[in-house]
């Protein structure tokens, strides 16, 4: 629905909800799959449900300063409850379904929890555990009644009972509805989220209606989304992406939200819904790519031939386009034919036919995935944001896409960089400070500028490049600033590179130590008749070195001149958690690696052509041994 963008931030989400119900009562607000069948709720019905629940919540004592804690996966009623408590100026506090009791206890200690809204019996049990553990939880309300018959806990209500109670109140008091709808203002809380808490306890982040609507309007102006989107609500409700899209934008612009049946059925539900907007971490797109490739590998020879013919061509055209070479007329013709024969049926199978705005965010996106979806005709774009800005602060426009950027800052968002290269952001979506944590607020907010904690820079065309966390930034001798992890991740996009360590702190140039992916490189060697005996042997083959040099050169092409990798070495063994070189989650332990491979690093920087290494290895039985090797150093 078209709205007045300039006046939007002076309103609350509730006024948009009521507007949608009044102006397009028959429009579909929510679709939820129940027992295999999609059931629709119109804006009028949805608004009624939200209002009735709010009336009952108020009766139970909800109001400003009190929270409704939401436990569960995406469910229609959990979203309705979210809006109901926002209507009453209270805090809607969604949580991750996997949140531990400790985390929930911490949340419950931040603000009084007047009620928990639980998806099902499992989540009710969690709430009861919290209560038994001493947390103050006045009421517990559950959505799915299955298995709840034997529960006799105090102040336990079913959703249906609450709606009945609310409807009775509304019927008895004809003015109540209008009063409820007018209660919340733009500066009242729309949601109570939490920072990820990788460092210390998660911090409470309250976003106001003005924040959330402001962020939605800015994203709309940047064409992150268009009118009348049909979206799939599958992101965790406690993640800001869900607040921004499924609640903020969907209510403001009156979209249709489709709720998948279960987490396991998301792919299938997506196929049925064919959403027009989709936003996910790169992992999701990678998975879909793998699924398509596996499906094709199991297909008939003819189909595989046709698929490969058109897909390889389309990927080639996209790669040229990415390098600034526009497609020729013949290319367009072949693509059109491929679209008819291959791409459209494929897209249909994965629910991508109506996709207008597809986004990846949160981490770097691999080139193969990026090119594949572009070739398929899905204009995959990247964006950047965080909880503290109520969603997104930068996004790529449809026509100006690069692989390593996250796009221009959104309209109304200003960017600045600190001395240390940290990205500072200002705009309407910026939060007003951490809940009851002035110290952390002071460290993060300065005169309206949010210190993102991310390092980055802006390219000549104005697109933002995010390098990684500021805490990871190091400098070369020339003072060139870089984040090793950023370059390493890009190296790892090559299927032949399992791990990499970029070294060059305090040196003139950057160099890299690379661990080959034994499986992929070994397979490549077999196909190309390159003999090898072991990992160490394969890693030192000249043919493999050429392969790696290509991969490094490709990464170099997207890096500023001072940050290119000039020399690399292929290591004789993988980084191994048992050797302490990487963590169990495969994160590099830089200190250990730099210490252990000090001679290699020296050789990489002093111009030697090869280096003799001794590496200590821990065998499976616990004993230790030493492996000796001569490693060739390659120039790029």
């Amino acid at each position, binding site marked *: 629905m078209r709205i007045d963008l300039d006046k939007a931030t002076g309103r609350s989400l509730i006024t948009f909800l009521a507007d949608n119900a009044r102006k397009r009562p028959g429009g579909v607000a929510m679709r939820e799959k129940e*027992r*295999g069948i999609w059931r629709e709720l119109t804006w009028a019905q949805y608004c009624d449900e939200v209002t009735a629940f709010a009336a009952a919540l108020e009766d139970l004592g909800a109001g400003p300063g009190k929270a409704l804690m939401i436990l569960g996966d995406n469910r229609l009623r959990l979203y309705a409850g979210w809006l109901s408590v926002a209507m009453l100026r209270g805090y809607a506090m969604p949580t991750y379904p996997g949140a531990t009791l400790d985390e929930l206890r911490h949340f419950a200690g931040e603000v009084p929890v007047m009620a928990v809204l639980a998806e099902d019996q499992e989540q009710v049990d969690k709430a009861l555990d919290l209560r038994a553990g001493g947390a103050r939880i006045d009421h517990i309300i559950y959505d799915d009644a*299955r*298995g709840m018959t034997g529960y006799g806990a105090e102040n336990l209500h079913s959703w249906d009972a609450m709606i009945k109670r609310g409807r009775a109140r509304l019927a008895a008091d004809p003015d109540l509805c209008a009063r409820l709808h007018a209660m919340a203002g733009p500066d009242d809380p729309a949601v109570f989220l939490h920072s990820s808490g990788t460092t210390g306890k998660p911090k409470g982040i309250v976003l106001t209606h003005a924040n959330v609507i402001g962020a939605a309007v800015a994203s709309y102006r940047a064409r992150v989304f268009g009118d009348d989107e049909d979206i799939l609500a599958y992101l965790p409700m406690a993640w800001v992406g869900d607040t921004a899209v499924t609640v903020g934008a969907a209510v403001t612009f009156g979209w249709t939200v489709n709720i998948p049946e*279960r987490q396991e*059925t998301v792919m*299938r539900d997506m196929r049925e819904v064919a959403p027009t907007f989709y936003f996910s971490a790169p992992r999701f797109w990678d998975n879909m790519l793998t699924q398509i490739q596996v499906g094709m590998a199991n297909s008939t020879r003819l189909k595989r031939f046709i698929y490969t013919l058109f897909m390889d061509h389309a990927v080639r055209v996209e790669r040229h386009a990415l390098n600034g070479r526009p497609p020729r007329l013949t290319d367009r013709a072949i693509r059109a034919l491929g679209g008819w024969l291959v791409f459209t049926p494929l897209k249909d199978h994965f629910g991508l036919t109506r996709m207008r705005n597809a986004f990846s965010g949160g981490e770097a996106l691999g080139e193969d995935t990026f090119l594949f979806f572009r070739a398929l005709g899905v204009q995959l774009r990247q964006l950047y944001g965080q909880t503290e800005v109520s969603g997104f602060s930068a996004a790529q426009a449809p026509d100006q896409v690069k692989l390593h950027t996250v796009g221009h800052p959104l309209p109304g968002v200003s960017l600045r960089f600190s001395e240390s290269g940290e990205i500072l952001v200002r705009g309407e979506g910026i939060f007003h400070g951490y809940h009851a944590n002035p110290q952390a607020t002071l460290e993060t907010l300065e005169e309206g500028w949010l210190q993102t904690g991310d390092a980055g820079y802006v390219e000549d065309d104005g697109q933002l490049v995010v390098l990684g966390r500021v805490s990871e930034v190091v400098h070369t001798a020339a003072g060139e600033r870089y984040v090793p992890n950023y370059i390493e991740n890009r190296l790892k996009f090559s299927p032949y590179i399992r791990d990499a360590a970029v070294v060059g702190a305090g040196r003139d140039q950057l160099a890299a130590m690379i661990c080959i992916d034994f499986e992929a490189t070994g397979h490549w060697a077999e196909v190309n008749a390159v003999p090898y005996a072991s990992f160490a042997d394969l890693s030192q083959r000249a043919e493999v070195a050429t392969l790696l040099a290509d991969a490094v050169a490709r990464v170099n092409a997207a890096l500023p001149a001072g940050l290119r990798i000039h020399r690399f070495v292929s290591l004789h063994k993988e980084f191994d958690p048992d050797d302490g070189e990487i963590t169990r989650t495969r994160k590099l332990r830089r200190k250990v690696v730099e210490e252990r491979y000090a001679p290699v690093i020296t050789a990489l920087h002093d111009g030697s052509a090869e280096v003799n290494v001794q590496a200590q290895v821990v065998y499976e039985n616990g004993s230790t041994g030493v492996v000796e090797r001569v490693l060739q150093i390659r120039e790029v």
Partner: protein
Amino acid sequence: MTESSPILEVQGVERRFGGLVAVTGVDMVIHPGEIFGLVGPNGSGKTTLTNAITGFYPPNKGSIRLTGKSITGLRPHRIAAHGVARTFQNLALFNGLTVLDNVMLGRHIHMRVGVLRTAFYWWLARPDEVANRAICEEIIEFLQLEGIRHELVDGLPIGLKKRVELARALAAEPRLLILDEPMAGMNQEEKEYMARFILDARAERGVSVLLIEHHMDVITGICDRMLALNYGEMIGTGIPREVIKDPRVIEAYIGQGHAH
């Protein structure tokens, strides 16, 4: 539990195959809402007894009554219509059909079919099918099969296939559910799931269950009463914890040398 109106009464049932006496002199009573365990070594007659109840092998002697009505010697589909559903030891699913279609097949005793209905599908058969689908979906939700609803049964792991079979049996909305080794070949986790589903089926769907099982921990864990067979004869019946202490049961199961 009312002693007066049992779901199933088996009295003095005997079944022979030529000269071989597979089952003889078996008495068994299952009350409404009961989970009744049937155990015995291989070849002791458990499946034959089941087949006698469901009508595959009508008994040569004795009587079988379902909620007071005699079903002795009735044809299997007639017995099914009386509210008896079963699963099979060696899975009897349609591998080429989806999970949903397999479950829908469980509704066959409730569906009215005919040439006329098929000819005028949209008007005569479809409403019936929609109503039946709703019940199947309820069971799919109950057994948490949503994620594989549209998958072919062929590609599923054994644990899920067993669950699909249970779903198909439940789709018939039986009063008596006969489960023939529902946990054979399952790992501990799958076993626990299945046990939970059986208990839930009783609590939420009000079925009585005859459970044939080798896993003694399952029998003692979820069965109210049990019966042990050996060489076609009853060697013990009653509360599981007591029956499994019976020396005759121990001997049949573990062998004499290990009894103490």
